[in-house]
Structures are given as C-alpha cells and as structure tokens.
C-alpha cells in the first residue's frame, strides 16, 4: 500500500501542470484555482510519500493542512468561479476562503505536536491524531472546508453533467463531468471513512480520485467548443 502515494503524486502533479497549461493558453480563474487545488492535492500525497520514508512534524503539518483542509475547498472554489459568473459571489467567497486558509495555516503551524514515535510503515492517517494536537477551531474549520469543497466540486460537476444530458449537447463534457464528480467523491469518501475510523482507505481513494478527475478533465477539454462545465 505504501507505493500508492507515489502514484497519486505523479498523477496529481501531471494533472496540475495540464490544468495550469490550459489556464496559460485560455485564461479563466477557475482553471487557476483548480491548478492551485491540485497543487495542494499533490503536496498532500507527496507528504504521504515523505512520511513513508522518514518522519518530520512539519511534513505531517503540511500533510494535514493541504490534504485534510485546503484541497477540496480550493478545487470547489474553481468550480464556483466556473458556474457563478454573475455578480461578485465568486470573488467574495474566494477572499473569504483565502482568509480562512490563512487562519488554517496559522492554526496548524502553531499547533503543539507530541514527540511520540512515528511508524513509517503505517499510514499517516492512522497516526496523526496521536501526534498533532488540533484545537476545536482547527477541527471545525477542517469539517467546514471539506463540506464546502465537496458540495461545490462534486455538486458542480453533477449539475454540469445534468445540464449537458438534459440539453443533449457536448457528450464528452457530460461524461467528463460524471468522471470528475466520481473522482472528487472518492477522496471525500476516503476522508469520510477516515472520520468513521477506517484509516487505511484514504490512500487508495486519493489515487482513484486523481485518476478519475484527470480522465474527466481530459475528456471535458477534448471537445470542439467550450461553453460551460
């Protein structure tokens, strides 16, 4: 199981570069924010790789901050920019999320860490609670950021797929959004299983999620025109 974060990291960084390149070619704040979310995703899985080789409390904090707190929220923020074009809702929520992310950074960086023995052969998800002392606010922010990110990213992809299906247009985008929704749900469900006590499901769910979302993105962007979704 320890090789899975290596694969997840490769896929996620390749995906982030592909999204950023598309942003450079075509512009669009949603693409830039998706690239940022994928960078957080990749940093989270890269931290898992590092933690499978050696232990550092700072790497564990980066893993928690990026993987558990910021990834879903910033990916979802990209979807908000894509789907809500009127008014300043997307801009305002982006600034709110930036402020919350800064607060999350400060909370995690300053969180006390217990110097217990860390077993590199076990997943970080199985051990972090014994090492990283999280305040009630940190846990609350983690949960709220994940609810926001999952709702906007998965809900947005489902909504887009539904629109394409109803209008019977852009089949590649319809199928692409179905895959993006399924891919985004995978780590969300892994995180949910983690909260329910199934700690070893997180790594595989992250890998499946990265693969499905990448394929969905390639499918969605391989069409002739770009209208929505």
């Amino acid at each position, binding site marked *: 199981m320890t090789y899975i974060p290596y694969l997840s990291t490769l896929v996620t960084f390749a995906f982030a570069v592909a999204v950023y390149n598309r942003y450079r070619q075509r512009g669009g704040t949603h693409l830039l924010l998706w690239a940022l979310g994928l960078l957080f995703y990749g940093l989270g899985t890269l931290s898992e790789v590092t933690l499978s080789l050696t232990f550092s409390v700072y790497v564990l904090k980066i893993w928690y901050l990026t993987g558990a707190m910021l990834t879903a929220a910033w990916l979802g923020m990209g979807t908000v920019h894509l789907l809500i074009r009127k008014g300043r809702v997307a801009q305002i929520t982006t600034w709110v999320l930036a402020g919350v992310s800064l607060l999350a950074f400060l909370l995690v960086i300053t969180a006390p860490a217990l110097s217990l023995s860390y077993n590199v052969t076990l997943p970080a998800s199985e051990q972090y609670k014994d090492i990283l002392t999280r305040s009630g606010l940190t846990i609350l922010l983690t*949960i709220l950021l*994940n*609810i926001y990110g999952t709702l906007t990213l998965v809900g947005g992809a489902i909504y887009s797929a539904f629109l394409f*299906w109803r209008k*019977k247009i852009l089949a590649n985008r319809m199928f692409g959004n179905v895959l993006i929704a399924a891919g985004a749900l995978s780590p969300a469900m892994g995180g949910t299983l983690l*909260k329910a006590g199934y700690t070893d499901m997180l790594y595989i769910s992250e890998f499946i999620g990265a693969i499905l979302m990448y394929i969905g993105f390639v499918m969605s962007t391989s069409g002739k025109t770009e209208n929505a979704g």
Partner: protein
Amino acid sequence: MSSPSTRFSPSAFVNRLIPSVLIILVLLLLGSLIVIGLSLLGVTPSA
C-alpha cells in the same frame, strides 16, 4: 448556445444510465456530507 455539431443522440441505454449514475452520485454526496456533519457533532468514532 451550441451549434448542431455539438449535439448528440444518446442510445436508450445511455439515456437511462446517465440519470441513474447522477442519482447515485448525489446519494453518495449526501452520504458523505451527512457523515462529515455527524463528525461535527462528535457522533462518529473520530473526527
């Protein structure tokens, strides 16, 4: 909004498959959100 070239005619199977898959995804999304919400209340084994 779209040119005729972007339209597609799904088979009967695909026409039934897509909404079914979307409904399953919505249910999974709701399930995930409920568990996240329960963890907020401290009901799940760990948060």
